[in-house]
């Protein structure tokens, strides 16, 4: 399916699915972003799943360190429905950095089981209700550093040293 022409009207579909939920929608390049408040994240996820978006392609965290918040983006799409499979929806929400906790959506989309574990070790965000929240790739003493947060500075060396 060509990326430029979408055969489905994603905005219309989202507005029908998320009726009664306070959300904002914006068209980005290649996907449609739907931001919901944290309280209604789970409800929105369930409704999107019922509308045919059956899996999460990726769970991304953006660290806005100056605003003091994380933005979580669940990029959802569909395998089973042919007309939906061309579109991507980014369901996004924000959470405060100092109380970094998200509800686990792994019972809604099972493909989140591993992705939530990875976010947990890289960002130190806890997922409430995850059945098996263990470290996935990192050793414990590395995971303590929360290496993908912005305050973790990777030391850099110039490739060519400047003459003094």
């Amino acid at each position, binding site marked *: 399916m060509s990326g430029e022409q979408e055969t489905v009207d994603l905005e219309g579909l989202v507005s029908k699915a998320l009726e009664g939920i306070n959300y904002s929608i914006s068209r980005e390049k290649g996907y449609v972003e739907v931001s919901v408040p944290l309280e209604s994240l789970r409800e929105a996820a369930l409704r999107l799943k019922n509308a045919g978006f059956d899996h999460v392609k990726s769970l991304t965290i953006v660290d806005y360190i100056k605003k003091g918040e994380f933005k979580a983006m669940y990029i959802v799409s569909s395998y089973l429905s042919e007309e939906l499979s061309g579109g991507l929806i980014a369901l996004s929400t924000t959470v405060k950095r100092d109380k970094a906790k998200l509800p686990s959506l792994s019972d809604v989309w099972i493909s989140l089981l591993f992705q939530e574990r990875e976010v947990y070790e890289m960002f130190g965000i806890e997922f409430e209700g995850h059945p098996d929240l263990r470290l996935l790739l990192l*050793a414990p003493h590395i995971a303590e*550093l929360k290496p993908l947060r912005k305050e973790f500075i990777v030391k850099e*060396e110039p490739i060519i040293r400047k003459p003094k």
Partner: protein
Amino acid sequence: MSKMEEAKIYVGNIDESARKARELLLGKMKLGRLVDWATAFSLWPVHLTTSCCSTEFAATWSPRFDAEQYGALPWVGSRQTNMIIIEGTVTTKMACALRITWEQMPPPKFVIAMGACSLDGGIFYNSYNIVKPWQVVPVDVYLPGCPPRPETVARAIVTLQRKIREKSIAGKWVEEGWRPDMKYVKPKEDVCSWWRG
């Protein structure tokens, strides 16, 4: 008849017989040289794939480059091998696996560090999760490149063979029971501490 008398058969306590047999053999000829020669032509690397360099490792033993002609053949289990080619990046978790694999191999054993990543980290030189292999196991031959070509891997094997024969590493290892230069290369870090808890 006199030859028959010379060839003794040792029975009974196995440690005692082994010691006597060793003394007999070492007294008669330069066993070390034989061991060096034999080891140099039976370097069996364990397939410890840690990263993308492993594709070139596989190509080295493919028909076109055929590293088996040097007497080196990748083998399956660590207990049947005597060489590790570290194929690229070693992460914190793999460092523990690398150390365990190395400890399982019967001596005399050798290590080739392959790729820029296993020299000093390569493109991940400042990553939080990188361990340099020389902190984990004693490395005999370093092999630069990202990734090194199969010819380079073959060259490293030949270099290691020459090193074994010229420095008599394997022979001394068998005679003295431990590698003589080990105290310089033995790593001090306990890389599996996180895992042992």
